[in-house]
């Protein structure tokens, strides 16, 4: 970890920065975050062209409940609950629309990135 003291707009700011894998991490004023320069933003935007029509499993785990099986959803509606690392997570719709297909059922073991729901 590199300790930095940088002159920002005439003020001295102290912090830390380090590249871990492909990501550039920064900590300043008690805030720690991944910094994306414009190139990284573009790269990540491409990698994450996460299709809002889809809900993917964010991590490996087990599906514990299907909250909506059909019909309209709005952004933020919980569609699926899953359990991983002893914790439960709710997976929400990223757009308004209608549920086209649910590709998992209660009790399924899923892998990271697995397609669970299609919304149209």
């Amino acid at each position, binding site marked *: 970890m590199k300790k930095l003291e940088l002159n920002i707009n005439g003020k001295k700011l102290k912090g830390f920065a*380090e590249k871990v894998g492909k990501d550039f991490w920064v900590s300043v004023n008690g805030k720690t975050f991944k910094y994306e320069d414009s190139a990284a933003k573009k790269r990540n935007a491409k990698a994450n062209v996460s299709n809002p029509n889809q809900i993917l499993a964010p991590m490996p785990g087990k599906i514990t409940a299907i909250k909506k099986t059909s019909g309209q959803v709005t952004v933020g509606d919980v569609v699926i609950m899953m359990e991983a*690392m002893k914790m439960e*997570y709710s997976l929400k719709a990223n757009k308004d629309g209608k549920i086209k297909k649910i590709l998992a059922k209660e009790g399924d073991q899923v892998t990271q990135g697995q397609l669970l729901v299609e919304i149209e």
Partner: protein
Amino acid sequence: MAIKKIKKLGIANRGEVAFRIHVAAQELGIPTVLLHSEADIQSKAYRMCDETVCIGASPTNESYLNINRVIQGALSKGCDAIHPGFGFLSENAEFAQKCLDAGIQFVGPKPQAIQMMGDKISARQCAIQSGVPVVPGYDGEDQSPETLLKEAKKIGFPLIIKASNGGGGRGLKISKSEADFFDQLSSAKRESKSAFGSDKVFLEKYLDHAKHIEFQVFGDISGKVFHLYDRECSVQRRHQKIIEEAISPSLSKETRQKMADCAVKVAQEVGYISAGTVEFIYQDHEFYFMEMNTRLQVEHPVTECVTGLDLVKAQIKCAQGETLGWRQEDIKPHGHSIECRLYAEDPYQGGIPSVGLIGSCSFPEGPGRRFEVGFEKGDTITSFYDSMIAKVIVWDETREKTIDKMIKTLQSTVVFGVQTNIPYLIEILNHPEFRSGEMTTQFISKYFADALKPIELSEDEKAFAKLASQMSASSSAADPQAQNVNSPWNSYWRGI
């Protein structure tokens, strides 16, 4: 009982507690063997323990939960004792018995005590026998509505009507008053009948603004049971504790003494030896026995901070047949201590685990600060286990000062490579209800059910990040040697 020094201690656990046990053993001059899974060769305990043996693959049922593999692993390295830590096999009476059968001392209570407390019904019976209050309830055979109403009135409203054979919230109804009792009862019976094939129900007092307060107890080899005061762990998310503190801000001197006496009585009832925790539910100045955990607790450091005692060393000494020489009147809480569990998770996405390679970490040491670290730079957080990286524990003179110190400590704690719950912890610590000490187990669902709002960076902070990243890019471009491991800008892999 004669003193029998442990020659080599097997550690049947992982993460920060495995290292914690190693340190205690080292101070007592006992070499350690880490009994670990394949995934955990990238952990602090793996690097620090005297010996290591891989007992199986990463899934817990092939390693940490596999009794035979743990015991075989320990025997293969000549261990004559095993410390089970917490979680995994620590409260498994069969495991404790099999250790003894294999000639291995189990660092913990006797299998009978584990068994007795592990079963909810026998634990409740044991509490009742020792005259300790339990949550008022009725689970009798007479299920006539008239009897149930009579019992309901005895218990008082609101109350929960639960399916006797049930679970998972089905067949569970809350009756607010006598007026809606029969409606809720018939609905609970209907659901119970269709879901579980029996319409037998039991009634229990509904505690909707309760606190979780627990007492640390310790049974000495001489037969004495000590209490080491209480901890409050009301800040819980889905029954997982996040922030714990000693001692509770809510108890009067008299109530504390009463609860301590009850905790000791329960432990004595089962002839308890070693460290254990008696958990209570506390509401409106009344307390009820909930359960007893027959093991070391994740949050044991806060008790160690306020009492100055070392629970893990005490456990090991106890397993060696040594008496501790404590006196109850000498055990006094001093100041205040708080523990925060540091998880690799994304607080801006509702706490989704953030797995991957850990970069540099910086834990700001200082007086009254303690860091129980499980993973370090270059280690990987996997999805096989829970994602706790470390526990941050601070001590100060008063609760108010301790909260402030914890916030400062967390603000200067840096973990790169994975997202952490630090921002979430800081928001909790700053919340007026937490500061007031009045939080209940509903606290998280009441105030922190949603993900945190995205992080807000000032223009200066953004400029700082941009400049740092430009400097990093140009330093590695200007100096091709910067690709080597000595460059602070490069990532690294190790331990493979």
